C-alpha cells in the first residue's frame, strides 16, 4: 500500500494530463454508445404527432403508450414475437443437447470414433458450401415454409462442441471411473455426472445460441419471407425499416405502416426496435461475465 501511494505521489504532470484526457475520451465513447439507444427509447414513448416536430433527445416530451398499443394490436407482429420466442427456446435446447452429447464422446479418450469425428467436425469450420448450395439443400429437404429451418440447420455446431469439450477435458477423470464402477452406462455418466459440472460453459453457449436465434432475420427472409404465420420479429422490423427508407425496393416493402396510419412510421419503428432490444437487455447484466469468460476461453483455445 505504501509503495502504491509512493508511486502515485511521483505522478508527473504528463501522467495527470493523460489520465484526464483518457477519462474525457471514455466519457465520449459512453455517450456515443448510449445516446442512440436512449433516443430511440424516448421517441418510442413520445406522442407521434409531436415527434414529427423534431427535437426529441433522450426524454419524451409528450409521454404516451399509444405507439406500443398500436404495434401490439397488429396481429402479424404478435405472431412474429411468438415465433421469435419459440425459435429462441427450441433452438437453444436442441443445440445445447446435441453439442454437449457430441462433446462428451469426444472428451472420452478411449472412444474409437474420437479422431475421425474430430477431424470431420474441424473441417466444417474452414469450408462451407456457401449461400446458393445451402439454399437449394433446404429447398430439397422440404424446409422451405417451415419453422424447422430456423433451428435444425445450425443445431450441431463444431465451434461450440470444441468449447464444451475443452471444458470437459479439465474435469477430473476419477469422477467418471467411480460412476462406472457403480455400473452406470456412458449415457448415465454423461447426464448425471458430467453435465451438471459443465454449467458455466453451458450457460455461455446457451447465451450465444439464444442471442443468435433471437437476432436472426436472414433465414426468415430467404425461406419464410412470404409466410406471414412464420415470420420473426427481426424480419418484420427489417421490412418496416426498408419500406420507409428512401425508395427501398417495393418487393420487400410491407403494408404494416399503411395500416398504422394513426401513428407516424418513425414512432412505430422505434417502438418495435425497443421491443426487439428489451429481451436482450433483460438478460444481459446477469450474464455478462459468462459471455466474457466464454469469449476469452474460445479465443485461447483456437
Amino acid at each position, binding site marked *: 500500500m505504501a509503495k502504491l501511494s509512493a508511486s502515485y505521489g511521483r505522478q508527473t504532470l504528463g501522467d495527470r494530463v493523460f489520465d484526464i484526457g483518457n477519462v474525457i475520451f471514455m466519457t465520449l465513447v459512453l455517450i456515443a*454508445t448510449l445516446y442512440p439507444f436512449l433516443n430511440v427509447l424516448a421517441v418510442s414513448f413520445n406522442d407521434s404527432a409531436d415527434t414529427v416536430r423534431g427535437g426529441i433527445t433522450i426524454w419524451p416530451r409528450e409521454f404516451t403508450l399509444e405507439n406500443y398499443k398500436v404495434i401490439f394490436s397488429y396481429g402479424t407482429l404478435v405472431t412474429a414475437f411468438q415465433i421469435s420466442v419459440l425459435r429462441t427456446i427450441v433452438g437453444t435446447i436442441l443445440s445445447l443437447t446435441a453439442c454437449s452429447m457430441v462433446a462428451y*464422446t469426444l472428451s472420452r479418450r478411449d*472412444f474409437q470414433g474420437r479422431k475421425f469425428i474430430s477431424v470431420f467436425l474441424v473441417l466444417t469450420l474452414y469450408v462451407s458450401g456457401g449461400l446458393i448450395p*445451402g439454399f437449394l*439443400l433446404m429447398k430439397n429437404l422440404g424446409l422451405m415454409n417451415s419453422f424447422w429451418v430456423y433451428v435444425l440447420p445450425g443445431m450441431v455446431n463444431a465451434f461450440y462442441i470444441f468449447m464444451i469439450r475443452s471444458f470437459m477435458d479439465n474435469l477430473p477423470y476419477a469422477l467418471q471411473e467411480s460412476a462406472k464402477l457403480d455400473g452406470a452406462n456412458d449415457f448415465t455418466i454423461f447426464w448425471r455426472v458430467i453435465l451438471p459440472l459443465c454449467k458455466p460453459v453451458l450457460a455461455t453457449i446457451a447465451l450465444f445460441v439464444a442471442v443468435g436465434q433471437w437476432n436472426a432475420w436472414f433465414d426468415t427472409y430467404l425461406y419464410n419471407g412470404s409466410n406471414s404465420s412464420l415470420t420473426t420479429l427481426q424480419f418484420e422490423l427489417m421490412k418496416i425499416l426498408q419500406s420507409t427508407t428512401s425508395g427501398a425496393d417495393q418487393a420487400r416493402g410491407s403494408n404494416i405502416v399503411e395500416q398504422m396510419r394513426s401513428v407516424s412510421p418513425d414512432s412505430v419503428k*422505434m417502438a418495435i426496435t425497443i421491443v*426487439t432490444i428489451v429481451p436482450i437487455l433483460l438478460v444481459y447484466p446477469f450474464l455478462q461475465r459468462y459471455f466474457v469468460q466464454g469469449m476469452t476461453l474460445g479465443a485461447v483455445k483456437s
Partner: protein
Amino acid sequence: METITQPSKPASAKKIKSRRFWKTAVQQRYLYLMSLPFVIWVFVFSYIPIWGWTMAFQKYRPNKTFFEQEWVGFQYFQELLSDDRFYMVLRNTLAMSFLGLLVGFTVPILFAVLINELKGRFFKRSLQTISYLPHFVSWVVVAGIVYKMLSTESGGVNDLLMWLGLIDEPIQFMAKGSWFWGIVTVSDLWKEMGWNSIIFLAAITGIDPEQFEAAKVDGAGRWRQIWHITLPGIRSVIIVLLILSIGNLISIGFEKQMLLSNPIVIDYAEVLDLYALNYGIGLNRFSFGTAVGIFNSFVSIILLFTANGIFKRYSKESVM
C-alpha cells in the same frame, strides 16, 4: 508353402483386430448413439452443400438429377470475369474489407490499452459493460439506429453538427454513394469495438505487473509504458488475430450492406455475397451464383496463406 502361410498371417491378425474393434464398439454403443446421429446431421447440413459446388460447372436445372445435368466446364467463371458489374462488386468488397480491417482492428487495441489505464474501478466496469452491449443487438436494429441518427429530420449526427456550427443544413448521409463505405465502417466500429477489445484486454491483464513497476521506477511516462511494455506484451495475440482477420477479409458478410443500402447507393454497397444472392436466388441463376461463391472462398484462402506466409517470414508468429 511359404507363399501360402505368409499372407495368411496378417490376415488373421487383421481378423483379431477387427473382432476387437467390434467388441469395443459394442461396449461403447452409448457413445456411438450419442455421436453418430449428429455426425450424419453435419454431413447433411455442412458436407452436402460442398458437393453442391459441382453446380458451378453444370448448367443446373432444378428438376433434373445430378447425372442428367449438362456439364459446361468453366463457362460460368468466364461469364463472371467478363461481367463489368463483377469488378465493381469486387472493388466494393475489397474496399469495405480493408477499411474494416484498418479501423476495426486497430481501434479495439487502442481501446483496450486505454481501458487498462483507467484508474476508477467502477467507471472501468461500467464502461466495459456498456461498450459490449451493441454487439448483442442485431444488425437490423443497428441499421435502424443508423438511419435514425443520420436522418436529415432531427437525426442525432446532423443535429450535433448543426449545433456545433460545422454545417448550415443537414447532410443527406444515406443518399450519397461516396459516404457509404465510411458509414458501414463506422457502424461496424460502433457495434463491435467494445466486444473486439475483450481479447486484447485479457492479454494485457496477463502481463507481469512488475514490468510496469520497473518502468515507473526508471521514470517512464504513461505513453512510454504503453509503447514499450503493454503493446509488446500483447504482440503475439495481435499477430495471430491479424492473420485470422486477413483470412476473413473477403467474407465480410453482407448483412450490414444489405440492411444499410438503398437503390441510390447500390453501386457502392453491393458486395460479392449480395451479388451471388441477387443473381443466384433472385434471378434463379443457381450455377452462376455458386460460381461467385467459389470465387469468394478461393480468394479467402489465397489471402490467408499470403498473410500467413508474410508473417512467418518477418516474425516467428503464424497460425498454421
